[in-house]
C-alpha cells in the first residue's frame, strides 16, 4: 500500500522542507499568481461588506475582527486551491512523490509556504483594516494570534485540499469541508483579537483561554496532518 520511507529521507527531512518552500516561493516570485489573487479577493470582499453594512460605521467597526477572520478564511481557500492545483496540473506533484522525499516533509513544506503567502496577505489586510475601521490591529499580540491562527488553519487546509482536489467536485468541495473545521479556530482567535481592540490592553487572564485554544487547535491539526498526509497522497 505505502512504501516505507527509506533512510535517506530521514536525514534530509528538514532540508527537504526548506527546498519545497523555496520552490514554492520562487514560483510565486515569478508568476505572482497566488498572493495577488488572494489580495484582490480580500479587498473586494471587504468593500462588499462595507456596502452591506451601509453607512453604519459603528456596526462595521464592531464586526471588524470577525470580518478580518472571515476574509482570511475565504482568501485562504483560494490560496490553498491555487497552490495545490498548480502542482497537480503540471504533474510536478507526481515527480515530488517519486523522489525520495518524506511525505511529511512535503506536507510541512506546503504548510509553511502557503502560510507565508497567507501571512503576506494578512500584512496587507491589517493595514487596510486599520485604515478602514480605525482599530488597533497593529498591536503585537494581535499579529501573534493572526500568525498562530493562520498556521493552524493552513495545516488543516493542506490536508483537506489535498483530498478535495482529487475528487469530482474539486474547488467547490473545499469550503464545504474546510470552513466548518476552521471554526473551532476562528472562534477563540476572534475572541482573542477582539480583546485587544479596546484602548486598554486586556489582562493575560482574560485572553489566556482563547489563546490556549488557538494553540491546542494548531497542535491537534498539525499532528493529524503529520499522521494522515501520506494516506492522502499515495497513488
Amino acid at each position, binding site marked *: 500500500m505505502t512504501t516505507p520511507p527509506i533512510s535517506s529521507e530521514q536525514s534530509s527531512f528538514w532540508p527537504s522542507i526548506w527546498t519545497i518552500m523555496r520552490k514554492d516561493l520562487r514560483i510565486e516570485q515569478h508568476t505572482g499568481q497566488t498572493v495577488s489573487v488572494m489580495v484582490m479577493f480580500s479587498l473586494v470582499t471587504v468593500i462588499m461588506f462595507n456596502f452591506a453594512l451601509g453607512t453604519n460605521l459603528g456596526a462595521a467597526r464592531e464586526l471588524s475582527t470577525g470580518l478580518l477572520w472571515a476574509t482570511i478564511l475565504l482568501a485562504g481557500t483560494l490560496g490553498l486551491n491555487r497552490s495545490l492545483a498548480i502542482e497537480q496540473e503540471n504533474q510536478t506533484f507526481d515527480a515530488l512523490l517519486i523522489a525520495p522525499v518524506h511525505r511529511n516533509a512535503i506536507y510541512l513544506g506546503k504548510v509553511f509556504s502557503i502560510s507565508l503567502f497567507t501571512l503576506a496577505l494578512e500584512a496587507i489586510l491589517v493595514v487596510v483594516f486599520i485604515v478602514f475601521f480605525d482599530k488597533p490591529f497593529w498591536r503585537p499580540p494581535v499579529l501573534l494570534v493572526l500568525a498562530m491562527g493562520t498556521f493552524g488553519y493552513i495545516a488543516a487546509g493542506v490536508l483537506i485540499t489535498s483530498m478535495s482536489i482529487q475528487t*469530482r*467536485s474539486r474547488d467547490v468541495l473545499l469550503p464545504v469541508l474546510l470552513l466548518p473545521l476552521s471554526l*473551532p479556530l476562528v472562534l477563540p482567535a476572534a475572541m482573542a483579537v477582539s480583546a485587544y481592540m479596546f484602548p486598554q490592553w486586556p489582562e493575560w487572564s482574560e485572553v489566556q*483561554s482563547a489563546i490556549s485554544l488557538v494553540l*491546542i487547535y494548531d497542535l491537534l491539526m498539525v499532528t493529524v496532518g503529520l499522521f494522515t498526509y501520506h494516506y*492522502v497522497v499515495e497513488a
Partner: protein
Amino acid sequence: MELAKLNRNTRILNIAAIVVLAIALGMIFFYAPVEQTMGNVQRIFYFHVGSAWVGSLAFLVALVSGIMFLRKPSRKWDTTAVAAVEIGLVFLSMAIVSGSVWGKPAWNTWWLWSPRLTMVTIAWLAYAAYFMLRGAIDDEERRGRFSAVYVIISFVTIILTFVSIRILRDIHPVVFGGAMESAQGASEGLQEFSGLDSMKMVITLNVSVIAFTLVFGAWMLNRIRLQRLTDETQILKSRVAAQLQGEV
C-alpha cells in the same frame, strides 16, 4: 460476522434497546423527582444528556474505524465508519433540538451563540460534510481512505468542544465525566437538593445513558446489515448487467 449471526444479534439488541428505553422513560417521568426551580420541563435533561453523550461516543467509534481502516483497508471498517457518522449525526441533532427546546423556558431564548452551542453546531456541519466528501469520490478505495482521514480530522472538533467548555465561561451547565457530576451540573445554579433526590437523578440519568447506548448499538447493527445487503445487491447487479451484455 456472517449474516445469520448479524441478524440474530441485531434482533437481540433491538429488543434490549426498546426494553431499557421503556424503563428509562418510566423512570424519567415517575421515579425522578420534580426539579424545584423549573419544574417538570427539566426532565428533558435525561434524554438531552443521553443523546449528547452517545453522539460523542458514535463519533469516537467513527474515529477508531477510520484509524483501523487506514492501518488495514477493509470494507468492514468503512461501513462501520459510515454507520457511526450517520447515527452520530442523528443523536447530535436530537441533542441540539432538545437543548434548544429546554433553553427556551430556562434562558428565555431558543438559541444562543455561546461557545458550547456554537461548537456543537460546527461538529454537526463537519460530520454532515462527510457525506458530501463521500458523494464526490467514485473510486471505492479512495473513498474509504479519504473518509477515514476526514473522520479523524473531524474528531478534533469534538475534542475542542469538550476542551472549550472547560476553558471558556459559558451559560451552558458544565457536565463532567461521571453521572454524579452530571446531576450536580444540573442542580448547580438551579437549587439545592437533598442527597436522596440527587441520587434519584443520577440513577435516572445513568439508565437513560445505558438506554441510548443500546439504541446506538441496535442502530449500528441495523445500519451495518443494511450496507452488507446493499453491497451484495451491487455485486448481483453487476453480474446481471454483465450477463445481459453477454446476451446482446
